[in-house]
C-alpha cells in the first residue's frame, strides 16, 4: 500500500494505491461547524442529491447509469462529529481489470453530476424531489417511537445535551420550517463554504491524471474546537415515558470531564470495551448473564461529545433493578483486572487490523483521522498497546452518571 498526499486546487487529496481489492472507492467530504437545523436540512440534501440530478432527472435514470457502469455504487451521507457537520459522497466501482477502459471516467463524471449539478432550477430543487424527501423524513420522525431504541437515543441525547450539539436531533418543528428555496440555499452553503477534502483508494489510483470535479470547488478552513462539553449536574436526571409498545427500553447517560487527548482517543475505547462493548463486557455479564434481565445491554462512547450511553431492552418490572445494577457496574469500573485490560486491547487492535479488509475503510477513516488529528492505524495500534490498568481506572474517576430515560412499554397486541 502506498499513500500519496497532494493538493489540487488547494483541496487536500489522498491517493491510496492498494491492489488487494477489485474495486476503486472515492469520497468527497464537505465539513463545517454544525447548526441545529443541519440534522434535518443536511439529511434532506443528501437524500435529494443521491436520488437524481440534472443529467439523470429521475432515480430510475440515475440507477440505469449505475448498472450500465458495472453496477457502480454511489452514496450520500451525513454525520455529526462534535461541533462539526459533514456531508460526504462516495463512489465505488470495479477497476479496469474487470471493465472497459473508460468506466472510471464515466463514474467520476456521474459523481460530479450528483454533487454539483442537482436536479434544480431557479434557486429550488425539483418540486417532486423536494416533496418526496420531506415526506419520507416526516414519516421517519413521526414513526420514531416504533423504533424504541432509536427513540430512547434521541430522548437521552436531548436530555443530556443542554442545548449543545449533543441535543441536535431531528424534530418536526425544524422540518416544518424547511422551504425548498431555503434548502437550496443550504446546499449552496455546503458547496461554497465547506472545508473540502477528497480520498480515493484502489489499484493504481495515483496514476489517475485528472479529478475534474475538484476544479471548480472552493475550500475554507475552520478551526472551531471539535469537542462538545455539556454541563454536568450533581443530581441524576431520571425520566420515565410510557408508550404502547411491547418491550421497555432503558437508556443511561454518562458524561466525561477533562479528558486528555490520549485518554479520549485511546483509554476511552478500552474503558468502553470493558464496560459494555460485546459479550465479555461487564454489562453483558451482570445484566444479561448473571441476572437474565435482558437480551442485550451495551454501551457506546462518543469521544467528541464527551459522553457514554447505555441501552437495554427489559421487562417493566425490572426497571429499578436494571438501573441500580447498571449504576453498580459503572461504579465497579474504578477497579479493573489485568485480564479485562488485555482482552479489551486485543479486541480494539483486532478490529483496527481487520478494518483493512474493507476498501471503504481506507477512505472514510483517512478523513476522520484528519478531523480528529489522529494517527494512522499502525501508530494507533502502538498507542492502544500503551494503555495501562491505571489509565483506565483514572479515567473512571472522570465519568459521571447524569441521566436515564426509561421508555415504559409492556403492552401486547390487540
Amino acid at each position, binding site marked *: 500500500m502506498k499513500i500519496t498526499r497532494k493538493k489540487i486546487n488547494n483541496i487536500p487529496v489522498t491517493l491510496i494505491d492498494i491492489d488487494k481489492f477489485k474495486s476503486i472507492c472515492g469520497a468527497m467530504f464537505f465539513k463545517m461547524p454544525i447548526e441545529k437545523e443541519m440534522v434535518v436540512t443536511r439529511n434532506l440534501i443528501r437524500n435529494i442529491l443521491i436520488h437524481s440530478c440534472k443529467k439523470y432527472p429521475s432515480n*430510475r435514470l440515475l440507477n440505469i447509469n449505475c448498472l450500465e457502469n458495472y453496477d457502480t455504487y454511489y452514496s450520500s451521507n451525513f454525520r455529526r462529529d462534535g461541533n462539526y457537520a459533514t456531508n460526504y459522497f462516495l463512489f465505488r466501482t470495479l477497476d479496469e481489470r474487470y471493465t472497459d477502459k473508460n468506466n472510471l471516467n464515466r463514474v467520476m463524471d456521474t459523481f460530479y453530476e450528483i454533487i454539483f449539478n442537482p436536479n434544480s432550477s431557479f434557486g429550488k430543487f425539483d418540486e417532486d424531489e423536494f416533496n418526496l424527501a420531506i415526506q419520507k423524513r416526516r414519516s421517519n420522525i413521526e414513526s420514531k417511537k416504533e423504533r424504541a431504541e432509536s427513540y430512547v437515543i434521541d430522548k437521552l441525547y436531548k436530555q443530556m445535551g443542554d442545548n449543545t450539539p449533543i441535543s441536535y436531533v431531528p424534530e418536526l418543528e425544524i422540518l416544518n420550517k424547511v422551504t425548498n428555496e431555503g434548502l437550496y440555499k443550504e446546499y449552496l452553503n455546503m458547496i461554497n463554504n465547506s472545508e473540502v477534502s477528497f480520498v480515493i483508494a484502489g489499484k493504481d489510483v495515483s496514476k489517475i491524471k485528472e479529478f475534474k470535479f475538484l476544479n471548480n470547488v472552493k475550500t475554507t478552513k475552520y478551526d472551531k474546537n471539535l469537542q462538545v462539553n455539556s454541563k454536568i449536574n450533581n443530581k441524576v436526571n431520571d425520566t420515565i415515558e410510557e408508550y404502547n409498545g411491547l418491550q421497555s427500553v432503558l437508556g443511561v447517560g454518562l458524561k466525561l470531564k477533562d479528558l486528555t487527548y490520549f485518554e479520549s482517543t485511546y483509554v476511552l475505547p478500552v474503558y468502553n470495551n470493558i464496560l459494555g462493548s460485546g459479550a465479555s463486557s461487564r454489562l453483558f455479564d451482570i445484566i444479561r448473564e448473571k441476572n437474565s434481565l435482558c*437480551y442485550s445491554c451495551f454501551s457506546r462512547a462518543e469521544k467528541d461529545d464527551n459522553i457514554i450511553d447505555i441501552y437495554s431492552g427489559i421487562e417493566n418490572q425490572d426497571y429499578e433493578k436494571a438501573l441500580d445494577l447498571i449504576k453498580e457496574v459503572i461504579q465497579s469500573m474504578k477497579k479493573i483486572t489485568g485480564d479485562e485490560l488485555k482482552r479489551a486491547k486485543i479486541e480494539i487492535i483486532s478490529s483496527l487490523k481487520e478494518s483493512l479488509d474493507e476498501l471503504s475503510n481506507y477512505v472514510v477513516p483517512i478523513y476522520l483521522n484528519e478531523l480528529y488529528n489522529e494517527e494512522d492505524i499502525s501508530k494507533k495500534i502502538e498507542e492502544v498497546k500503551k494503555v495501562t490498568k491505571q489509565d483506565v481506572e483514572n479515567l473512571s474517576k472522570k465519568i459521571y452518571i447524569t441521566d436515564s430515560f426509561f421508555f415504559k412499554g409492556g403492552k401486547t397486541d390487540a
Partner: protein
Amino acid sequence: MRSIKLKGVNKTIYEEKLDNGLTVFICKMKGFEKKLAFFETKYGSVNNEFIPINKKEFKKYPLGIAHFLEHKLFESADNSNVFEQFQNDTAYVNATTGHNSTNYFFDCNKKFNKNLKRLLDMVQSPYFTYENVEKEKPIIGQEIDMYQNNPDQTIYDKLYYNAFVNDPIKYDIAGTKKDIKLITKEDLYECYNTFYHPSNMFLTIVGDVDINNVMDFIKENQKTKSFPKAPKIINKKIDEPDYVDKKSEKITRNVAACKIGYAYKIKLDELSPIEDLKRSFFLSIFLRTKFGELTNFTEDLIKNKLVKSYFYYYPNITKKYALIVFYGDVLDDEKVKRLIDEKLTCFDDLKESFELYKKQGLSNYVKMFENPNAISSHIRYMYNKYDIIMDNCYDIYKNVSFDEYLEFVKKIDYKNQTKIVIESGKGK
C-alpha cells in the same frame, strides 16, 4: 482434497469430506487480515418434529428449540466464559439460527487454529443443566420481545404465519415466550444428538490460511473425538397445500400510520441446482424490474398519496416455495394492491432491464471475491441449498437467455395471497 476452480474469477475452493462425515470447505484470501470459520448444522427452526436418535416414534418439540439450543452451546461444564476466551485470542464469536440451519462462527486475525479448535470443541461438547436452561428463558424472552416490538417485523412474521398451513416455516424462528417455557435439557440433548452429528454438519473457512495445515489440524481435532454411527435423520414429512392458511388479518398496534403487508405464495417445482439458481436469479430480476430501482414505483405511490413514505418488496425463496412480500405505510389498500397485481402480470418492456441486471449479476459475482464475508455466505448458501458448490455460476449468469426468463415469469401463479393490516391504535 478436491479443488473447485470457480470459473470467471480465478478462485479455488477446496473441499474434503472427513471420515466422520464432516464436510470442510476452505477458500484462501491472500493478503486479508480477517480469517473466518463457520461451523454449521443443517438443523433449523423448521426441524421440530422428527424421530430422535435411538427412538422409533416421531416426537414434536417446542417451537424455537433450535434457536434455544444455539444459545446453550455457549455454555461449558467448567462454567468458563467462552466469549472471553475467544476475545483473548483476537476472535469475535457468535451464532445464528435460520429456518434450515444453525451456524456458529468466529473471525480473528491471529491464532486461527487455536480459535478453530475452540469453536469445534464448544459446539461438540454440549453441557445442559436444569439451571442453565432456566436461566436462558428470560433472556430469549427479551430477544423475542425486541423483534416483536418492531411493526415491520410483525408484518413479516404474520405474513409467513398466515401464508403457510402446515409447514413449520410459518413460525417465528425463536418461538414464543410460551413455547420456550416448555423446553427442557432432555429435549435439547435429543435435538443435539440427532442433528449435530458431523455427517449433518459442514465447516467453511475463508481467509489467508495455510490450506493443508488447517485441513490436517481439523482432521486431528476430529480424530480425538468419538461419534456414534451417523443417525438417519427422519423429519416429519410436511404436506403443505398450495393455498394460504388465512387470507387476511387485521391487528392494532401503536403505529404512527397504518401499515399493510401482502404476500404471494408461489409453489416451486423441484429443479436441478443450475435450474434452481437460474430461477432465483430470474425472480429477483423480475421483481426488481417491476418494483426496484429502475422504476419510479414507490415514488409514484408516494406522489399519488397511495402510500405515505415507504414501500418495500422482498422475495423469500426456499426449495419448495417463493413467498413474495410487499409492505409499507399504505394509504389506499385497494389501489396499491391493484397496481401490484397489474405489474406482476405485465410482461412488456422486460428486455432492456434484463440485460442490465445480467451485467450487474456478473459484476456482483466478481465483487464477492474481494469480501471474505460474502464468499463465505456464497459457499454456505450453495451447500445448504444444493449440497454442492457450483463452479460455473459466472457462466450461468452470463448465458441465461431472455427467452427462458420470459417463459419463467409468464408461468408464475399469483393466486395464493395473504394480507396483514396493522391499524393505528393503542392496543391492549
